[in-house]
């Protein structure tokens, strides 16, 4: 795995000087992962190539919005892919916008302490490592496959109720590890 600050500075080089070599380096690392991500949601290889290309073109266009104080490169690129995938896999085939997670274009109104920071991010990541392997597994499945929980249950050969409670328990555990009470409302 490449050094993560490396990826950050590559995106910044794209933003600063439209650095094509930096872009190519990012492409080499992320495009095959973006392709795999879409294929695990059921897309054919050619469609997944298009998707990876598309997401990487967005990385190029929006590089200026990347803020390493908020998120690391992989998270920022994941959010691009998440927003894009919703459009690609849409069943209604129409072009109405789906709510997107923010990449920094429009800042939602909220108190400063509720903006995502890189420290928040690393807390979530280390909490994730505190989960049991089967809990990590269900959370990963929820991310990478556009599956209903019934399908997750089938692929893990578990009853549906078990999968649902496993996801819920894993999420509650994740929150506990982050010391954020479940259902804490603002």
């Amino acid at each position, binding site marked *: 795995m490449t050094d993560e600050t490396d990826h950050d500075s590559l995106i910044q080089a794209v933003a600063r000087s*439209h650095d094509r070599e930096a872009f190519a380096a990012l492409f080499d690392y992320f495009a095959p992962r973006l392709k795999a991500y879409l294929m695990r949601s059921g897309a054919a290889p050619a469609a997944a190539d298009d998707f990876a290309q598309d997401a990487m073109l967005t990385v190029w266009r929006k590089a200026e919005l990347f803020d390493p104080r908020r998120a690391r490169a992989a998270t920022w690129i994941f959010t691009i892919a998440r927003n894009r995938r919703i459009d690609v896999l849409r069943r209604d085939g129409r072009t109405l916008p789906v*709510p997107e997670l923010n990449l920094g274009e*429009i800042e939602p109104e909220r108190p400063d302490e509720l903006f995502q920071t890189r420290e*928040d991010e690393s807390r979530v990541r280390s909490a994730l490592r505190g989960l049991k392997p089967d809990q990590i597994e269900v959370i990963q499945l929820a991310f990478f496959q556009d599956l209903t929980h019934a399908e997750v249950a089938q692929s893990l050969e578990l009853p549906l109720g078990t999968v649902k409670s496993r996801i819920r328990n894993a999420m509650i555990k994740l929150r506990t590890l982050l010391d954020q009470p479940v259902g804490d409302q603002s």
Partner: protein
Amino acid sequence: MTALRQPSEERLLAYAAGTLSPPESVVVAAHLAMRPRTAHWVDGLQAVGGEVLESIQPAAVADDLLARTLARLSAPSDEGPVTLEPANDMAELPEPLRRYALGPWRWIGPDMRVRDVLAPRDGDCRVILLSIGAGRTTPVHTHEGVELTCVLSGAYETDEGVFGPGDFEEADGEVHHRPRTVSAEPCLCVVALDGQIRLDGWIGRLLQPFVRL
């Protein structure tokens, strides 16, 4: 169960992962706009997405994909900050809902009105705004699918308790749902409806052909 008045952990995870259906995402986005702390948690879940993107087994892309992509690079646009024009005139709506055009208000009963939010559908699942006047009760109904509701203003009460601005409720086919507005003002909600609503009782069956939600 619904006592938290926020989406279940599984639903928040699906939203963060981008696997939630578009109509449901619209209602969750409205809720998150009104609950910054939960929105912050969803932001944090993006880090989980980043983590798994890195840990996935890469799939080799087509040999010429990099060359084709480089050929399509243009100078990043100098458009400046993006401004989104609201697509409707209801300034009281949270930002995610301002992006959609709205259908006309339709009368569905005394002091009860509904209008379509022209957001993406998913099969039978679509998004509506529902306004129920003070003191009014919707007809008892059950749902064929899941119904997600976020209160935008006012408040309603069900067997589960009182739901006020920003509160989120999930009701499925098991629930005989009979929300009653308990605020002095009308209760305005955004709802993702999956499947048809079945009105209970003989009056409900008489009304059914006329009430198209």
